[in-house]
């Protein structure tokens, strides 16, 4: 198992009633996105009802963790004590393929100084934090080969 992209000490994600299936899915290496059971459209970030048809009965559908870089940033200035020794790191906003253009935030694995290319295809990588209490998994990205 590879070590996490960012140094330890950042706040950990805590599942809530809004998004518990998402976090449980990541632990099983499955990307689940909210999908309306009536109009069958995806939506993200998680909402309590469908913003299109106002249906309250939302489900979760597994999608392939592939997408395209919609935007990006290379962070240099640390704003959290955990990142003081981190050096630069990259955050990407990824449009998930085949899921109504929903976007997710993650880190782009690899050299933090690599070229950042909007539109490039990326592949999801499940980053397990098994030693955390409670354990959790983040969804990271690398350029698709």
């Amino acid at each position: 198992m590879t070590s996490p992209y960012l140094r330890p000490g950042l706040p950990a994600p805590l599942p809530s009633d809004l998004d518990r299936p998402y976090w449980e899915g990541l632990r099983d290496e499955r990307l689940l996105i909210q999908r309306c059971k009536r109009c069958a459209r995806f939506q993200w970030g998680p909402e309590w009802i469908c913003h299109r048809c106002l249906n309250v009965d939302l489900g979760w559908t597994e999608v392939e963790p592939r997408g395209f870089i919609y935007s990006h940033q290379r962070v240099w200035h640390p704003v959290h004590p955990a990142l003081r020794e981190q050096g630069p790191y990259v955050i990407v906003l990824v449009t998930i393929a085949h899921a109504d253009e929903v976007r997710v935030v993650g880190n782009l694995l690899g050299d933090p100084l690599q070229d950042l290319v909007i539109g490039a295809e990326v592949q999801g990588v499940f980053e397990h934090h098994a030693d955390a209490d409670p354990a959790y998994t983040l969804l990271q990205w690398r350029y698709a080969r």
Partner: protein
Amino acid sequence: MTPRSLRGRAAIVGIGETDYYKRGQAPHAEFKLALEAIVNACADAGIHPRDIDGFASYSNDRSDPSRIAAALGCKELRFANMQWGGGGGGGSAAIGNAAAAIMSGMAECVVVFRALAQGQHGRYGQGTAVPDVDGHAAHTVPYGLLSPAHMFVMKYRRFMHEHGVRQEALRAIAMASYAHAQENPRAVMHGRPLDEKTYDDSRWIVEPWHLYDCCLENDGAAAMVLVAGERARDFPHPACYLLAAVAGSQYRAGAPVHNTPDYATASFKTLAPRLYAMARMGPADIDVLQSYENFTGGVLMSIVEHGFCSAAEVNDFFVLDNLLAPDGQLPLNTSGGNLAECYMHGLGLNLEAVRQIRRTSTAQVPRAEVSMVISGPMVTPVSSCIFGSEATL
């Protein structure tokens, strides 16, 4: 039936502020700073604070209007208003709310204020210091997306990509603020000019934003006094009328985890047409602009969305000479703004817009009759407003 409009129905008759301090260095409590700014604004208007009957603020200001009214001995309180939303998005909205209260007869004399002592109450530019996060923050914070710069730079990077914006455009915005601050002895950066090399050599906060693309963090307070338009001539200074104020944002601007459909925007696309319609003006009528700089990239998108240039023209439009008082095409942030005068969540920009109408700015635009403020780009809701001299009514 005439369209419902704020145009000319209220006027700013007093402005006041405290000294501006570096973050954490204010010698007084935040609440006392608020009182000092309000007392100064009342003195400027030639009124006694007891005659204020309403307060409007934004961004969850901590100074409670009931406590302010008690501290100032106000005879009665008739209006206590908070514009929802964070950052500086509510600056011009609070002025619009105050004017609406006056126009509707809910209040007679309303103070708009903002007080900040970040040293006493935590800091905006710092990430969260908790062991875990839930809700929407759980989908960003664990990836190191923590600060306002991180939240907004992703929008600007996308805009920059779509329209081929060069770094020099941002540099011109930063240099205009610093150039104007050199004329303004109140400015925190007075005596500290910024040249191209210093900007270029400065460290990245987050690409493509250098240190000088990011606002200051300051302590202080600012306030303004509003009354009905028909009373504006009874006060000591040349009348400054509110010609329009709008607030809001586009469809699903508040969609979580960076899923706003129209993403690469400062959130003004739906507001600007309403602003100009209410003022019965267009961008060509604006003599001078104060545009909220949380980050220079937000200023650039705000100015495009208010129609001063198209997205295709930004590299030609955003050059320093165009942005400088007295005779640039669009004099911008003439007090030094949030980058170089003081970061007072942008209300200082509204005070400066009033000074331009009074012709008392330290970087005065000659014959300024119409003065605009754009508040809080990239947050939601945002707001903007237009002030005018008596000649514009």
